[in-house]
């Protein structure tokens, strides 16, 4: 039986996975993937709450907007990563440490 709780558990797992990816992975592309996981976790939450609890379209609208802005953010993020790669020849997050101090 799939109920609201199942969706919430899945989305929470996705959220935690996203945070873990962002903390643990050193590859910048993988970190961008982690951001996508977090955003999708909340989009899933919005849809699930709308389906099971609330009888309005607010959650669907929210998740549509989340998908659109996630795409925009990924585009900008990848553009910046490409520029960083051209300058440093590396997409390792530890190479982005010249600004400290």
């Amino acid at each position, binding site marked *: 039986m799939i109920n609201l709780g199942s969706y919430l558990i899945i*989305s929470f797992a996705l*959220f935690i996975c*996203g*945070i873990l990816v*962002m903390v643990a992975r050193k590859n*910048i592309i993988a*970190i*961008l993937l*982690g*951001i996508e996981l*977090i*955003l999708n*976790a*909340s*989009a899933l*939450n*919005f849809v*699930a*709450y709308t389906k099971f*609890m*609330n009888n*309005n379209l*607010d*959650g669907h*609208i*929210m998740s549509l*907007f*989340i998908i659109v*802005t996630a795409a*925009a*953010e990924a585009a*900008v*993020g990848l*553009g*910046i*990563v490409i*520029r*960083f790669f051209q*300058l*440093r020849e590396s997409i390792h997050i530890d190479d*982005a440490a*010249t*600004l*400290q101090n």
Partner: protein
Amino acid sequence: MYLNYLANIARYIPELILVALMAGLLILETTYREDEKNKKYIFIGGLIGLVVALASLVANFSGKSETIFSQSMIIDPFSTLMKIIMVLGTIGVFYLSRISKDIYESLKTEFIVMAVGILIGGMILASANNMLMIYIGVETLSILSYVMASFKKNDERSSEAGLKYALYGGLSAGIMLFGMSHIFGVLGTIQFSGMAVNLLKLNQAQMLILMPSFILFFVGIGYKIAAVPFHMWSPDVYEGSPTPVTAFFAIVPKIAGISALARIGFIFFTAATPMRASWILLLMAVASLTMTVGNVTAIGQKSVKRMLAYSSISHAGIMLCGLVVINDIGVRAITFYGITYLFMTLVAFYIVSIVQDKYGNDHFDRFTGLAYRYPFMAVVMTIVMFSLTGLPPLAGFVAKFNIINALLNSHFYTLAIILALNSVVSAYYYLKIVRLMTLKQQESNEVIEGFGFLNQFIIIVMTAPILVLGVFWENIMMLANGAKIFFQ
């Protein structure tokens, strides 16, 4: 229904002007050849557009407060005043970007287009009345800011700043959304007015369960104003980006985030519930941490720009203090603080930018003996530094006094003491510049080209409000007093 929509547009003219301006400037920019040096029409067009938007905002100011577009936006004097501050800041930064050598000549037009875009995001955030608008405002601000931070394409530090900004920003936006989704699930709608009603129907246990979601929600906006646990990006980004971009980041996103937080506080936490207590506790902790960490870290900095970055963190903390008291006195203090903060930051960044363009870096030593070469500029810088510290009779003093007054009125004595102590700490690094400028002999007699007559004149004109507001502050207070937050 449709007629209502059309009627609402009349209240939304400033934003529409800016959207049209951004589109127009983008099209105009494509008509220039790549190697064309002087693209002055974009600059002039941008300035005219901003001034028109400013005029329509001023016209909007006295209108009655109402929600527009099916209650998704709110137009009240508070949001209008915050928007006026943001537009003024953008106008100031436009001219700075024009004279600065820190931005590539070929990218100056793009800077103007993107600054207008960020301004639109800030204005959405300032008048947002539902979750969706908050999210869209934050993202409009952020996505363009990422690009702006990595503006020096061939500079490793700048692209690194953009990268850090994008990664931290994506994370915090995601966390904010996750919090929002749970708030939405419990309260059943994304409209703030409906949410506030539903919130009061919950019992105490349910409210406490909802509180972590509000903390997650706070992360997203706290990140935009660089409140302390989420401030790590700020000094790096401020140092890595070109100086006009830094000045812009220090003004527009901060003011926008503060006004959004003020509205959230008013809508959800006016009633005496356990949530109000924990929200106030959260804000108090964040505010005192933000002030203290910002000030203490600023002491050790060698670069003036980085010092200003940390000092702007601590000023965000002071503005957060005004949000702790959720009442009209606090809001009045914040709006006044925003106005003075705008002018102080602009002048400080103008001078730092011009000095940096001459010498290629912005270490404290570059300011030694400035008083002997450019007495006017040294006096202006001294005034700004005194005002940032909060010494009377300057505007910064009145602004800080108002915040402390609001705190004392609501019996937040600890926070008021922390604020006062922090002002003492900040005096050290602000007055360090003054000491270097006046008491030390100059290293050389070089002429700084940036301090031409026109630039000096503009800087002095921008300093005038700091002096005037310090003495004749009642008029602005009346203005700020009218700028109450409106909610249904």
